[in-house]
């Protein structure tokens, strides 16, 4: 059985690609055979975050237009040989993705025995985002504790429940999980940032995981190593926990409480 998971959000810059790279890597670390696909045609990013940008020969659009086979286009990860990346095209227009074409590629991956297909959605609610979610069995909605991101997530949740194959087949909306990223417990405790509870209450869904805002995410992307592989990073460890929960394990939340500050620090700034 193959499970197709879309990582989506509506808003850009919230951490979808960061999450897709860590999710795919995390699943591969559990021994699953995983393909991660960049749907952001024209603005490919995932190859950089995965650190395989120099090995992109053919891309997703080439496969859809049958200019290359899927086998030729899948890039095997350097660190896990059960993990493959399918890069987005850098040059073609957005119309290059077709519903039939995407469906065919996903079906071929299923036939090839992949356990998971992770679809990294582009921002927005246009064609690329629509196709990334259309075939999904499950969705990870990435949200930042910030008004525009929360509002966009709600729109995406609406689309997941109506504009997907899952919904059209009468199976109801695509089951969705919220992943709250770029969370800063200090700012939450000083009333400057929406809390986990606030976001859950507004969206009416429990949060699957909370990824703290952390510098290690930038240094991981600088190096082309998904942050989940950084054992010293809180953000990386939070991804490990979130993926375990996605696979059904129960784990307590970590890194969600502000460090206790003394009165001195509170009075004189951090």
């Amino acid at each position, binding site marked *: 059985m193959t499970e197709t998971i879309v990582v989506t959000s509506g808003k850009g810059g919230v951490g979808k690609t960061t999450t897709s790279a860590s999710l795919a890597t995390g699943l591969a670390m559990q021994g699953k055979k995983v393909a991660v696909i960049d749907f952001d045609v024209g603005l490919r990013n995932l190859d950089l975050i995965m650190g395989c940008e120099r090995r992109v020969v053919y891309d997703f659009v080439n496969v859809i237009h049958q200019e290359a086979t899927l086998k030729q286009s899948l890039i095997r990860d350097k660190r896990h040989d059960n993990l493959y990346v399918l890069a987005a095209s850098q040059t073609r227009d957005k119309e290059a993705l077709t519903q039939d074409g995407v469906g065919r590629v996903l079906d071929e991956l299923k036939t090839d025995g992949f356990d998971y297909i992770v679809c990294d959605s582009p921002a927005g609610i246009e064609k690329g985002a629509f196709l990334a979610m259309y075939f999904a069995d499950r969705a990870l909605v990435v949200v930042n504790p*910030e*008004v525009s991101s*929360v*509002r966009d997530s*709600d*729109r995406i949740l*609406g689309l997941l429940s*109506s504009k997907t194959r899952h919904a059209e087949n009468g199976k109801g909306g695509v089951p969705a999980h919220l992943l709250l990223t770029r969370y800063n417990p200090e700012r*939450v405790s*000083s*009333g*400057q*940032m*929406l*809390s986990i509870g*606030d976001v859950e*209450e*507004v*969206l009416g869904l429990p949060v699957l995981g909370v990824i703290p805002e952390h510098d290690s995410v930038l240094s991981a992307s600088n190096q082309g190593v998904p942050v989940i592989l950084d054992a010293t990073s809180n953000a990386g460890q939070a991804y490990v926990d979130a993926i375990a929960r996605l696979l059904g394990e129960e784990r307590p939340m970590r890194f969600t409480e502000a460090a206790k500050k003394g009165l001195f620090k*509170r*009075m*004189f700034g951090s």
Partner: protein
Amino acid sequence: MGILDFLRTRPKNTASIAKERLRIIVSQERSSRNTPDYLPMLRTELLAVIRKYVHVDLDAINIQVERDGEHEVLELSVALPEHKPGATG
């Protein structure tokens, strides 16, 4: 900085403002979801027609699509201004 200054300059709780704004906008958007795309246009055109007779604002016009068993019902209500509506034409 003394303790009084610290208390005075404490930043206000903007997260609760954010939450309140979101609560309103999200519930509004949810209720307008799955309604026909032509509703906003219909509302503006109705406004133009109604304004030939009475001066009302756009937000005085409320349009909703309700499900009634098999049927969909377009519900329309217009709140008239307080004073006696005088025809302008």
